[in-house]
């Protein structure tokens, strides 16, 4: 089956929806349109992923667009995060609608940017051209900036400005890296139209100029690493995540960070191939991963705001994924598994924190206490999400972290293992303290009572049950998909 029309449709649907949502008359209608867009993209993505699993990669638009096992897997994670965040937005903004801060103008702005951001992320995943890959990442930066300050306040503007400037410059550095990698292919005298194609560069990786490719990877790691929130380039992340409305924070942590890391996953086999599989690029990934885990652990110990806590936890988890990628082999498999686990657990935690914040009027950890009693649904969501995030067994993140640790043992790098476990231990102790207090502590003042409906229950129960099941049993199709995706990153070694 020729899947080319599928890819074109996948790319077109979100952008059409972005324009259409500017024309929808009612705020609820905007959200309904966004959700319908998600369903359409989910259907197309499912069909495309199935085609890829059966018949191998799909190409379209003169090989500029393509979908292979790696991008198909990431696309499915994106679809899950987008659909659940959009469904959650119905509940989140319903309260604001009563407070009259969710006006038609705000709803349209949200709709256009939300669907546009989805389109940009889909473009990143479908692009075979490394230039378009970059354009997509930069587009997510500029499109999501105004989502942070959907409600204009002094702090949300501050967070937005920081995000915009730091990420634009970071992503600019990634472009220098892209150019250097393209330069490393000059000795091959390729057709200029094909120089930037990922498939071409991967096929000729061993003939690239190693010195230039290495220089390029340094820029790429710092550049895309900034957008992925790797320490020490993460300074924008806690501000943006804490100030953005909760659905936006969930999309940021659940997928936007992954999208930037996905770019590094694409470059890893090219640069490793150019360096003769010496492990140079992987070593850098290990270092950045460990630094992110340890820096995040240090900050998690001293947090007062639950959304900032979750933001630092994202730095930690993206660090774990980077570490896994750096270890290679089993680590790559574990890293990919961990991206899905983290996205599920983190969106759940942000959903819960957002709703609890709305009824308490603040995100201060010291105020959000005894939530399990006052808010049975979202209190349980926050507790479950946090427990999964800090790696409590038998939730799935525990399994993927265990696999990363095993990969570290296999590669025989004792120090990596020690630092990794020390970071995880610090996060566990630090965040468990907050999680228990928020669940069972004694509240000083009574918050607004919880008003939940079936949708709230579904949004809490489905991710929690999924995380539990994945922690205990891995379905064969998922294992096959992960193995195939890991093979793409592992190159031909």
């Amino acid at each position: 089956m020729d899947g080319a029309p599928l890819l074109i449709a996948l790319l077109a649907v979100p952008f059409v929806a972005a324009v259409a949502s500017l024309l929808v008359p009612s705020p609820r209608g905007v959200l309904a349109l966004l959700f319908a867009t998600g369903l359409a993209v989910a259907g197309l993505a499912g069909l495309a992923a199935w085609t890829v699993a059966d018949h191998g990669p799909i190409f379209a638009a003169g090989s500029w667009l393509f979908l292979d096992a790696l991008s198909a897997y990431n696309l499915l994670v994106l679809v899950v995060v987008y659909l659940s965040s959009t469904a959650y937005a119905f509940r989140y903004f319903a309260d604001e609608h009563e407070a009259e801060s969710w006006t038609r103008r705000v709803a349209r702005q949200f709709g256009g940017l939300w669907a546009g951001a989805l389109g940009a992320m889909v473009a990143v995943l479908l692009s075979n051209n490394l230039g378009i890959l970059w354009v997509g990442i930069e587009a997510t930066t500029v499109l999501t900036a105004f989502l942070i300050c959907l409600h204009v306040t002094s702090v949300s503007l501050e967070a937005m400005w920081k995000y915009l400037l730091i990420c634009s410059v970071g992503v600019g550095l990634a472009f220098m890296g892209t150019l250097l990698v393209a330069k490393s292919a000059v000795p091959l005298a390729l057709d200029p139209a094909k120089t930037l194609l990922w498939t071409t560069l991967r096929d000729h990786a061993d003939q690239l100029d190693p010195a230039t490719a290495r220089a390029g990877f340094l820029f790429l790691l710092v550049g895309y690493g900034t957008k992925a929130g790797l320490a020490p380039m993460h300074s924008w992340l806690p501000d943006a995540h804490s100030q953005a409305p909760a659905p936006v924070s969930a999309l940021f942590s659940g997928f936007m960070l992954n999208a930037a890391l996905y770019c590094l996953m694409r470059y890893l086999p090219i640069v490793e191939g150019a360096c003769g599989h010496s492990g140079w690029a992987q070593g850098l990934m290990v270092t950045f991963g460990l630094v992110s885990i340890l820096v995040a652990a240090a900050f998690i110990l001293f947090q007062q705001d639950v959304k900032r806590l979750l933001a630092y936890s994202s730095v930690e988890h993206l660090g774990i994924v980077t570490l896994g990628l750096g270890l290679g082999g089993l680590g790559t498999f574990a890293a990919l598994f961990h991206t899905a686990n983290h996205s599920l657990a983190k969106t759940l935690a942000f959903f819960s924190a957002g709703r609890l914040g709305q009824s308490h009027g603040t995100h201060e950890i010291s105020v959000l206490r005894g939530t399990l009693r006052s808010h049975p649904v979202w209190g349980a969501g926050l507790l479950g999400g946090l427990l999964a995030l800090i790696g409590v067994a038998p939730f799935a993140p525990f399994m993927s972290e265990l696999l990363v640790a095993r990969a570290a043992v296999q590669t025989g790098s004792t120090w990596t293992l020690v630092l990794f476990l020390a970071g995880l231990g610090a996060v566990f102790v630090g965040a468990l303290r907050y999680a228990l207090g928020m669940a069972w502590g004694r509240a000083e003042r009574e918050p607004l009572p919880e008003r939940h409906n079936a949708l709230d229950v579904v949004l809490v129960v489905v991710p929690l049950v999924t995380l539990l099941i994945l922690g205990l049993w891995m379905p064969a199709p998922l294992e096959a998909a992960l193995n195939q995706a890991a093979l793409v990153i592992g190159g031909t070694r």
Partner: protein
Amino acid sequence: MSTSAELLAVAIVLTNLALLGSSRMGGLVRAMVVQGLAIGAFPVVAWAAGVSAWAVPFGLFAGAIKGLVFPWVLMRTLRRTGVSREVEPFVSCGMSLVIGLVAFGVAVWMGSRFSLDGMAYPTRLIVPVALFTAFVGLFLIVSRRKALTQAMGYLVFENGIYLFGVALVGELPFLVEFGILLDAYVALFVMGIATYQINREFHHIDTDRLSRLKG
């Protein structure tokens, strides 16, 4: 022929020094106009030297965006926020010039270590000038207070990277080049609106006073 390319390179270096040494917003925007046009002219000059003719429309397009559209957006934002000068930058304009000269020396040294094999453009100056421009952009972002000056710094940084791309891989496919310019345009547009909103909310656009988010 290669003299005209070198003249353009010198013009870009001079605009960088003007950007470092000027505190008047109007002066900064004028320097951006000259720099944008000079960068757009680079591929055109190279075409005269025998590089593929496709470079010409690209160059003209990029020059028009960088030299005319961007400064126009900047001027409009300037008028709406009523800011006319960068008062008390973190690093004074004189000191900025000294740092700029040192950076230029480093850029020339780095450029001399760069292999030019297979490069399309007829002057050795282009790589050092591109690196210098990117550095000046970064320096403006970290050393200036006003949101708008930081936005200009971002554009100068983009100019440097664009020039680097022109030097390194000659022509990029049209769609990629178009996407890059579009992104830069939207980024500037967003920064412009953000500056306006910051001004309305705070009655100033001094980013060092946006410091409530910590830890």
